[in-house]
């Protein structure tokens, strides 16, 4: 009997996250999914982001994720160098409470 309850609990719990999709969000988020932003008069960088956004949200998402990762990596490297130059070596941080 206990085993049956375990199986029932597991099935119920596995089904919980599906509720998030059950609301048919694809249809309800149509406003954003089909949204087009203006590209007239933008500088080169903004034009690139805006036109990628208009062409494909999937491509835009990939571009955003890759750029944020790359920019994060570049900044981490650059600030580490700068701090070492001004004499604040924080490579061995020990946290304390």
């Amino acid at each position, binding site marked *: 009997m206990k085993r049956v309850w375990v199986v029932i609990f*597991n099935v119920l719990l596995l089904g919980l996250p599906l509720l998030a999709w059950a609301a048919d969000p694809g249809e309800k988020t149509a406003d*954003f999914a089909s949204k087009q932003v203006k590209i007239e008069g933008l500088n080169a960088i903004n034009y690139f*982001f805006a036109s990628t*956004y208009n062409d494909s949200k*999937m491509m835009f998402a990939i571009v955003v994720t890759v750029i*944020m*990762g790359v920019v994060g990596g570049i*900044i981490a490297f650059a600030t580490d160098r700068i701090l070492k130059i001004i004499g604040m070596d*924080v490579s061995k941080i020990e946290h304390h409470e």
Partner: protein
Amino acid sequence: MDFLTVYLPIAEQNFSALILVAIGFAVGVLGGFFGVGGAWVVTPALNIFGFPMAYAIGTDLAHIFGKSIVATAKHRKMGNVDMKLGIWSIIGSVIGVEAGAQVIMWLSTMKIAGGDTLAGPVVRYSYMVLLFGLGIYMLYDYATKDKRAAAKAATASVAAAAPKKAWNLPPMMHFPASGITISFWTVMGVFFFTGFLSGFLGVGGGFIRMPALIYLIGCPTAIAVGTDLFSVLFAGAYGCWTYGVKGVVDIVAAIYMLVGASIGAQIGVTAVKYIRGYGIRLLFAIMIILAGVSVALKQFGLTTMAAWVVMGAAMSMCAIIMAKLWAGFKKEQAEKMAH
């Protein structure tokens, strides 16, 4: 100061670059110093300064992902990751982030009076509960620190109790690197819940995941720190991507904030070396409560006052940390000169 105004192509609005960098900077200093992300300032601040709630959360998650790469490079604690637990953290967090994001997008389709959507008040009230709750808990923690220290000293000889594994519903999982055996549902529950918070509020979730990893799952602290960073990295990446697919990430704003946050984080992390004492936690608790006050002010239509409160509190906190850091740095230099 028109030259500091930038056009955000996805949010389609002009915004002060100075405010974006300042928000990022404040979050970086606080996160670097206190060891929690501090992203709970970003979503309310962006919303207060005019971002619709879905854009505020999406942009915040994008900047969290960039910042988590900086944090991972900085702390170099990825070696402490329990890889098996880390993989499960990715699965639980990704499902949680997506569930949170779906709820936000669903709420964003429901218009309410004043041109806002239901996502605005729902997230703001959630933030009020979170920030006031956390702030009051930290004040209580500060007020009772002496009593707890005495109690700890009295029980020091007693062996530490094993973490309570509250729920042992099968299947059970064994994590050799952490030396723990625990219910699959406890593991998934922790990561799903923190992932949901990330997707729903635009926070990293470390302030809940860290204690949960240590006290609920029973991870050693070093492994908890590494696994938390690992989890934030992937949850942030997924959050950035999924909000990007949904079209509500302003990448230009996220980059400005990331630059500010990265500089701030270096200062915050460096300040850990120079500032000691429990007093700074009191200021942090007050800062969290003021952030909650600013969200309440925004909810009740006092947007200008909300902007002053959130930025004033964040920048004051940064100024105090930087002043103490500078004093500590000068003192160290003087001591070096004396020897």
